[in-house]
């Protein structure tokens, strides 16, 4: 009989061994699929690694992919740590993009020193405000924030589609004939393009730098502030928080807004670093908000680990783009990416639980424990 039981103590070495083992497991499983579909596994992995991280310009492209993932990962981390389930980073990111692009258009003639900070601020505020809606509903009416924040993603998705495709809004380009027939957003002025930092031939986008600052701030917030202490108590036991006189309702709204602000900043970065236009289709296809939940889960809600995981997943999706071609269908790329995530998340189980094999009706000898090995 195989039983899964909870570990009584957290095993430190597993925190390293399990992710590594999960990755190995993913490589083995994917290789089976690659062989079955007539592809060379070794070559495929090499290409993925090459295009994702190693070849010229790969790292810069990966960083662009990683930036929104980093910020939505932080958004999920901020909320999940307090056991508040903000699933709405997707919509909050759209709203951040709406705010940042709107401000970017409005201040188009201003210098970068004015436009860029304004875009950052707009992203933060729009995301925070959108997330505060489910937060306030939770605090006042005790609605389930998982459902309300998730539903608001669809509302936000329809909103940005409306702004560009279904209306003559401020965001839509209407000055040329083609743009009136084929709707698209207004491009921002060059002053609104965010700068990047060049280090050793790699361009680090401004948004990614902001994300690293955000990660450090979040870490500090939870570790050594009164606000973070209250959030930790609420996350562990709402009853204990109430007992200790913590204003749990205010904290829920505040933490949701904080979470939304990170996601909104992710949207602003996507506009400032990369798209320079409000692009409903591109934003919705990327689904960075949902990706952020995966990032946060893999990073075990550690803000610094979020940076690394965002880079890894960013590289994976960036490398995935370049794998696609006539001989390599997009579905197969998705399968490989899915397998890696699947193994990583399944491995998480082994950090907290162990598997014991019990021989049925054996004598009084205690069954040997099977060493926990990732699948």
């Amino acid at each position, binding site marked *: 009989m195989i039983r899964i039981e909870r570990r009584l103590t957290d095993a430190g070495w597993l925190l390293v061994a399990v992710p590594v083992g999960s990755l190995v497991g993913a490589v083995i499983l994917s290789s089976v699929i690659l062989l079955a579909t007539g592809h060379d596994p070794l070559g495929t992995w090499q290409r993925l690694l090459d295009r994702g991280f190693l070849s010229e310009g790969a790292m810069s492209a990966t960083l662009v992919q990683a930036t929104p993932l980093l910020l939505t990962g932080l958004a999920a981390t901020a909320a999940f740590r307090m056991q508040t389930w903000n699933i709405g980073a997707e919509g909050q990111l759209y709203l951040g993009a709406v705010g940042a692009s709107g401000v970017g258009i409005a201040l188009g003639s201003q210098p970068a020193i004015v436009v860029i900070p304004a875009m950052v601020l707009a992203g933060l505020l729009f995301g925070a405000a959108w997330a505060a809606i489910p937060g306030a509903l939770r605090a006042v009416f005790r609605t389930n924030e998982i459902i309300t924040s998730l539903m608001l993603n669809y509302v936000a998705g329809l909103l940005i589609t409306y702004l560009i495709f279904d209306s003559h809004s401020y965001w839509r380009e209407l000055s040329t004939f083609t743009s009136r027939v084929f709707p698209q957003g207004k491009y921002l002025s060059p002053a609104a393009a965010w700068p990047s930092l060049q280090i050793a031939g790699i361009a680090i986008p401004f948004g990614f730098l902001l994300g690293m600052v955000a990660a450090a701030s979040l870490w500090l917030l939870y570790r050594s502030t009164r606000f973070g*202490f209250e959030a930790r108590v609420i996350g562990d036991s709402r009853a204990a928080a*109430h007992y200790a006189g913590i204003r749990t309702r205010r904290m829920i709204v505040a933490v949701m807004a904080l979470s939304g602000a990170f996601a909104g900043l992710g949207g602003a970065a996507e506009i400032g670093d990369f798209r320079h236009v409000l692009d409903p289709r591109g934003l919705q296809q990327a689904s960075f908000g949902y990706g952020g939940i995966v990032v946060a889960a893999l990073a075990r809600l550690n803000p610094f680990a979020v940076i690394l995981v965002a880079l890894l997943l960013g590289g994976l999706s960036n490398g995935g783009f370049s794998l696609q071609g006539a001989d390599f269908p997009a579905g197969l790329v998705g399968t490989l990416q899915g397998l890696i995530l699947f193994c990583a998340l399944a491995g998480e189980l082994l950090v907290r639980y162990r598997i014991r094999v019990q021989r049925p009706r054996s004598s009084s000898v*205690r069954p040997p424990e099977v060493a926990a090995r990732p699948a």
Partner: protein
Amino acid sequence: MRGITKRFPGVVANEQVDFEAMQGEIHALLGENGAGKSTLSNILTGLYRPDEGEILVNGKPVTFHSPRDAIAAGIGMVHQHFRLAASFTVAENLVLGHRDAADRGFLLEPGMIEGRVTELARRYRMPVDPGARVWQLSVGEQQRVEILKALYRGARILILDEPTSLLTPQESENLFETLRLMGAEGRTVIFISHKLEEVMAVSSRVTVLRRGRVVGSVLTAGTNPRDLARMMVGRDVVFTQKKEGPAQAEREVILQLRGASALGDLGTVALRDVDLSVHAGEIVGVAGVAGNGQRELAEVITGMRRLTAGTVVVGGKPMRVGDPLAAIRRGVSHVPEDRMGTGVAPSLSIADNLVLKAYRRAPISTQGFLHAGRIRTNAIDLIRRFNITAPGPQTPTRLLSGGNVQKVLLARELSSRPRILVAASPTRGLDVAATDSVRALLLEAAAGGVGILLISEDLDEILALADRIAVIYRGHIMGVVERQNASVEDLGLMMAGAA
């Protein structure tokens, strides 16, 4: 039972336990919490399988694969927390999951079942209406249904786990009467308890467990509470008792409830027009059967529950009700009934839990930032002063034993220099040594001028500590008596609602 051993990951719950009960005897299984009593009874009723050892019923070895096998062997169990379907009738509960001659295929025959129930109830003097739905019954009646259920299924051996914990003294006496009848009839009763008095009163033989092992098995007639306590704990025990203190009348009234009413969690009236006062340095005990508004009373005073009428006056000034922070700021400390989960945040460290209320103020925090060093020194200091046994200040609180969790709680609540301490069942589930140190801390706090409201279902504890005793019944204070004028009989009657 011979040589029973049961291990759980990290602990040995029973080690080489030999246990023997004769036909027709009432055999008490005595031991502190965690001594292995429940594990042993779970093995006997087929819920667990022993790692080693064997069970013999009437001299024949048996193996139980499930509780069904144990029931078939004539072993019945009455759990501490009843396992009844609340919306079913008494008769329906009795036949639930049970197949016998009264059961013709799909169809039940209520008349026949009810007839048999009534007859059983009469024989054992446990009056209960077989047609009543379980939710309508009192706790004492529900327990009778549990016992009847076991008897209905033909139990020759009946195990009762802490059966008196929810009963009034009178109800307990009735239960003992029933048990004696069953013994006289040749049934065997195994009575699990950690209360010495009731073991002395009801049993004919006692087996004492300590840390999973049998310490000894003695005839009740040949022993006394002192010897049993020594066997149970492994050393002499003298419970801390309140000394006759100075008269409290001239001391300041520090807490007063005036006409306080409140609703319970289900929206029903839980507190009705409660008037109660506590003087500085006084311990007022609130006695009552569980579920009569004790929790709501504690929550109203500590701001965790709103009042629907009345006021709470602290130190002469009315307090903002329904606001725990206001109560904390007015010097109202609280040791809640649910210590793990409400009283402490289980996964946070001991150090964090020790500043669960003080984190707002200097020196623990300034300008919104916490000072890790001061949190740590505070923890080291309190761990030493309150004799908390813990690997270190960063240990998650959930890993501590119940007694040490309670010490963490008391250390935090008393080190804030409160004016009032509301302590709800502060020693429930603690072993003898921890109980004693908790009681000593309460007495010390009272001697230092703290007014204490001690809410407890353990009448002995209230009699040992309180200066005055208030009895609560269905959310109303039935009366307040001085300790020296209190008798268990009178208190018991008040607890049952007879003023």
